């Protein structure tokens, strides 16, 4: 990746050893050990018990709900990310910085607040709650509320990947295509999309990981109905509180596996398409 440092700028060998040990030790202690903990606890009574906990109906319902919520929230956020980054990077208008700030905002909003806001709007004591009840539409304590909370917490992820990437790529290619008479959609599909596809995938990956793992926001709007509105992270908490520690860690290990798959794909994308996602090297 990087050419070896020249002698005059090299760290003292002792410094190298100490820093390496500190870095590896820190990552080992703070990251590897908790991860190992999850799997060792999950498998502490044998693989059979672990699998039984995952195949239990409530656990499977939680898996289905988590997949369904992510399957709705992530594509919508992807559509938003593309739309927002198109508007922001291909045009000049006043207030762009402010718009970007607003898009970034959910990143630092507490998950609990993210859930609370939907309770204040859709709850029976909230703005729309009574009306929705008359119409027999459920939002909070049902799938739509879970999807909304998920969308909020993962709101900026895809836009944040695409905006720097598309800024770097400029507008010349699109402008050339447009001047040759290509339609907007055609320009986007033929020129922009191929340029950003890996960056987009990268963003979708991060968005999905967070969407499937969200706990705080979803916890506030879920209602915790077993087999109906418990997502996987909530089911982990339920099992943990039910003395079913092995079960809790079994479902947790499923989520940890998801995290490992995410990291693997992410590293793969970074190594093979570094240029295509370079502008978006940080989240």
């Amino acid at each position: 990746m990087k050419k070896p440092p020249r002698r005059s700028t090299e760290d003292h060998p002792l410094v190298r050893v100490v820093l390496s040990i500190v870095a590896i030790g820190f990552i080992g202690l703070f990251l590897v050990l908790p991860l190992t903990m999850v799997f060792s606890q999950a498998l502490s009574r044998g693989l059979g018990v672990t699998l039984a906990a995952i195949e239990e109906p409530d656990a499977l319902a939680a898996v289905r709900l988590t997949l369904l919520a992510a399957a709705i929230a992530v594509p919508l956020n992807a559509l938003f990310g593309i739309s927002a980054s198109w508007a922001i990077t291909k045009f000049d208008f006043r207030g762009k910085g402010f718009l970007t700030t607003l898009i970034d905002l959910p990143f630092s909003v507490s998950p609990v607040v993210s859930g609370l806001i939907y309770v204040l709007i859709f709850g029976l004591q909230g703005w729309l709650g009574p009306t929705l009840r008359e119409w027999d539409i459920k939002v909070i304590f049902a799938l739509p509320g879970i999807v909304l909370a998920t969308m909020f917490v993962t709101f900026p992820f895809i836009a944040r990947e695409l905006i720097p990437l598309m800024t770097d790529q400029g507008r010349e290619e699109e402008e050339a295509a447009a001047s040759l008479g290509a339609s907007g959609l055609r320009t986007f599909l033929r020129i922009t999309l191929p340029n950003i596809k890996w960056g987009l995938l990268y963003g979708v990956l991060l968005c999905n990981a967070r969407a499937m793992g969200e706990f705080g926001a979803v916890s506030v709007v879920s209602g915790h109905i077993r087999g109906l509105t418990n997502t996987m992270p909530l089911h982990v908490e339920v099992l943990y509180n039910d003395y079913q520690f092995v079960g809790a860690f079994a479902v947790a290990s499923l989520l940890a596996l998801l995290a490992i798959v995410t990291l693997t794909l992410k590293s793969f994308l970074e190594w093979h398409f570094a240029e295509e996602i370079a502008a978006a090297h940080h989240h």
Partner: protein
Amino acid sequence: MTAAIASLAAHWRNPSALPGFALSFGFTLFYLSAIVLIPLTALVIRPWSLGFAGFWQILADHRVLAALRLSFGGAAIAAGINAVFGLIVAWVLVRYRFPGKRLLDALVDLPFALPTAVAGIALSTLYAPHGWLGEPLSELGLKVSYTPLGVVVALTFIGLPFVVRTLQPVLSDLTQDAEEAAATLGATRLQTVVRVVLPTLTPSLVTGATLAFARAVGEYGSVIFIAGNLPTVSEIAPLLIIIKLEQYDYAGASAIGVIMLTASFVLILALNLLQYWTGSRR
């Protein structure tokens, strides 16, 4: 609707050869309003039913103050720890070569990919009095789980990737010419690092630490399992929001929410300014 946006648009944006502004901008604004802005408005206007004095009274409560202090203080300490260790990790990952480096590099993002509830139960089990780390630490007289220290541990865990990932690209871009020049001029390695390398890294280090802070200040899932949730000792502000809700105190919950939201907004604004600063320095 779109026509109105388009005519409005003509006044405040520069002409462009590209199509789709009205559509993309309109959709962006619609989606942003529906998912983020309108719901947040509901939060912001909620506590004022109590009047300003009532709002102030909620926040002046010693338990609320203690929770806010813990959330902000804990996040600040965690960001500080991450600034130091994140810098070391980034330095090692960019400058040194050793077997297993790629694995280490990939692992840095674990806190980002691992659901917070999973991190929570794992850390809590790890640092419990009879846990793998809790046992030896308690022999040293150090209690982590169910203390503010546990909060800091959880917040450090979730904040690490932000510092490392912000520093890495800057470190890779940093040519060693300047370091070499300094060395040629007779500077010691330490002087070179302190005078040449660190100042260049400072903006990104601050950005990364601020990102870690912003992420940590509102964190809930990974903290509640390990914190023990003792009021005024190890109870974080987001948990207090939940507790207020459970006592049917919507205004109180919203008041704390508004403070957290204001902090988020200021932080994000600061981050964007920082990024502007970083950009102009490079």
